């Protein structure tokens, strides 16, 4: 459902933020995207969602190339960005309605969805309040609700757990599982390796713009016997870093 081939992004004239990254995410998969700060996770996600145009390579979402058929591709995914401070002048409901209008969600479908999601995330009471007055966590919840309102097959979530309270984080993880179980796919970036470990079918690790691991958590742990995921992750990153320095 998500196919990235040789994605490369250069900021300015020489800062290569992403270098030749390729991966495939199939139906029913939840994939965690990990890496240190500045590794290139958000840049990859921005290329997948059409915010950035790759210098080379291609991204195909649900069968549609994001550059060649942008509107069809964009209609196929839900995107939660890493910053929920968007259109704060609107009330929560106005923002959801705006996104629902943009994705042409019929009234009879959106009303029950808004009701269900807002109750699951315990934000229903605040829907008529301007988002300027929301806490960071409430804004994050609202971004998730708005992104999912059109029930797309592909979810692309950039650090979606940040700011969520434990019950909302639990609900979101539950929803991700339900979504994947229906034959859809989820790609999310995270710094919390435990979440990736418990939730993902596969993980991808990126460092200095290059993909350094793709596979299951079990396979990764098996190749470093006796070590937990955190230690493996740190070793992988430091190894690659020293490797590059030597090179």
């Amino acid at each position, binding site marked *: 459902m998500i196919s990235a081939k040789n994605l490369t992004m250069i900021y300015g004239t020489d800062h290569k933020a992403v270098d030749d990254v390729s991966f495939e995410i199939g139906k029913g998969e939840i994939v965690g995207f990990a890496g240190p700060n500045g590794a290139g996770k958000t840049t990859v996600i921005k290329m997948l969602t059409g915010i950035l145009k790759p210098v080379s390579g291609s991204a195909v979402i649900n069968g549609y190339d994001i550059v060649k058929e942008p509107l069809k591709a964009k209609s196929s995914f839900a995107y939660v960005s890493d910053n929920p401070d968007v259109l704060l002048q609107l009330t929560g409901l106005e923002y959801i309605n705006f996104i629902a209008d943009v994705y042409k969600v019929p*009234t009879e479908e*959106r009303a029950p969805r808004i009701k269900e999601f807002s109750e699951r995330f315990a934000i229903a009471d605040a829907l008529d309040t301007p988002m300027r007055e929301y806490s960071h966590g409430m804004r994050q919840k609202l971004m998730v609700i708005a992104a999912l309102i059109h029930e797309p097959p592909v979810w692309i979530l950039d650090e979606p757990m940040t700011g969520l309270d434990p019950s909302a984080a639990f609900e979101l993880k539950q929803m991700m599982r339900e979504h994947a179980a229906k034959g859809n796919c989820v790609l999310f970036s995270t710094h919390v390796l435990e979440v990736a470990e418990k939730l993902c079918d596969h993980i991808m690790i990126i460092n200095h713009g290059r993909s350094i691991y793709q596979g299951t958590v079990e396979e990764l742990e098996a190749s470093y016997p006796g070590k937990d995921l955190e230690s493996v992750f740190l070793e992988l990153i430091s190894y690659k870093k020293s490797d590059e320095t030597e090179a």
Partner: protein
Amino acid sequence: MSNVKYLFNIYNKNFEMPLPKKGFKATAYTALAIIAITCIIVPCCLIVGFITNIMSQAMMLEGSKTGALMSEIHIMSVFSLVFGLFVIFNVLYFSSDREHLVTLPITPTELLAAKFRHTYFAESLMEFLVILSMFIGYFIACVSNYQTIRSFGLISILLALIGTFVTPLLPLVYCAIISMLLMALLKNVKNAKIFSHVSDFFLLLFVGLFLLSFKDSGGITVNNYIESLLAENNLFFRICNILFFTVPLLCKAMEAESLLLALLYLIANVIPVCLMLLIGKYLYQEGLYTAASLGSSHKQADVNKLNMKLTSVFSACFHKELKVLLRTKAYSNNCVYINLLWPIGVFLFFSLSSKNENVQRFRELYGNPSYPRAALIMMLIVIAVSFIASALNTLASTAFSREGAHVDLIKYIPVPYSTQLNAKILTAIVFTYPSLLLSIVVASYFLNFDFLTGLTYALTALLAMTICIVTGLAMDSAAPYTVWSDEYSALRGNLNSFFNMAVSMLVAFLLCALIFLLFELTPASLSAVTILVLVILTIASILAITFGRRIIIDNMKELY
């Protein structure tokens, strides 16, 4: 106080709008900067200097050497006070960096001093130039009137240089003190709307006071203005003399060439700053607490009763634009309500100048078919105002900057760029064109022009406005200013709006000059010239829409 220096330096760096450094865009921005300087800053300074010179000469003949200079500095100070209040409010209490800065080990006084210092320099740059022009105009008048360069001395020149930089200080100090006192007084109200209406109140107060002060002298005319200054019975300026007490002191020191008065002037400027810092020491922190706890009344939403109807994609984008503009005080004041100035201005101009001979003469000539030049001048005014009004409200030239850090929303929602652009164009039109139409209707009441003439003006305004809006959008889409600390910064720190204004003024000037010369130098009738104007504007509008839209959409694809 090194913390003040560090903070000040950081503010200055953060305030700078990033501009393209290489390629065509960088060259274009350099060209725009040159146009902006030659079309806005230089003409403004020349006009202000000229007015000061003329008025000073007139008043010097009656024995008042610095009366005109003082009155103009007073008007400038009132502007600084009225428009600085909202800026200071935002900077001191509502900027997004507030929550980060208050956690740092710096005193509220240091924070206040740094924020004030930054705002003073950032807001007063243009003011410095205008005040300098006033002084130059004044000195030229001295030489012309007294026929000798010795009509002013070294102290005058030094005071003028100091006054250029110090004059905007007192109004801004008042703004800071008023902000802190209001925050303290209204601590228990905790409603942001009350705070944001204070600047409106002061604007109305000073405009009302200014108009009231000319009530008994038969309207605002240059003669009445000068006479009231000479008689020293003008209520507005008497109040200003007390409020901006440093200005009379400056003028007296210049007039008397007195070193003692010059020192007094400097001390008189330092005292309010110290007072502000003293008040800040006791009230600023409390005000920050109040600002952090402000909010509108929380409504408990019933999810079953909320409106969730489907609207079209275009309508959704359009309504989003409207809501953002109308619900943000900085945008609603500077982009929306500012348009009301034009019809109100036209009304006040004709009402208050009912006894002015020149205006009376123009109105007579306008109705006389034997003098088509009056009608031509009216047409030129419509063109110039349409261009300037469309640029002044910055609706188009900040359309992408207003999106802020989330400008990438434009990229990832499945809405064609053309649809999103149309929503932005319509938003700019919806707030600009009605005010232009209303201005034409008001003018028609005073000038008694017929429906067809009104229709011609309306069409001219529509076409000029369209060109200006597309130009503004193209400029802002090329290099939007999206990383700002508060919404007001999106407007005041945005060079795109400044450049758009410069280009609009230049285009309006060239177009008007061309039309005027065409009428004067060829045997073309007024009707022929009018048709030609409409044809030129129509072609320019079509070109702007066709090519301009393409450029904007290409720029939108590059946004992130």
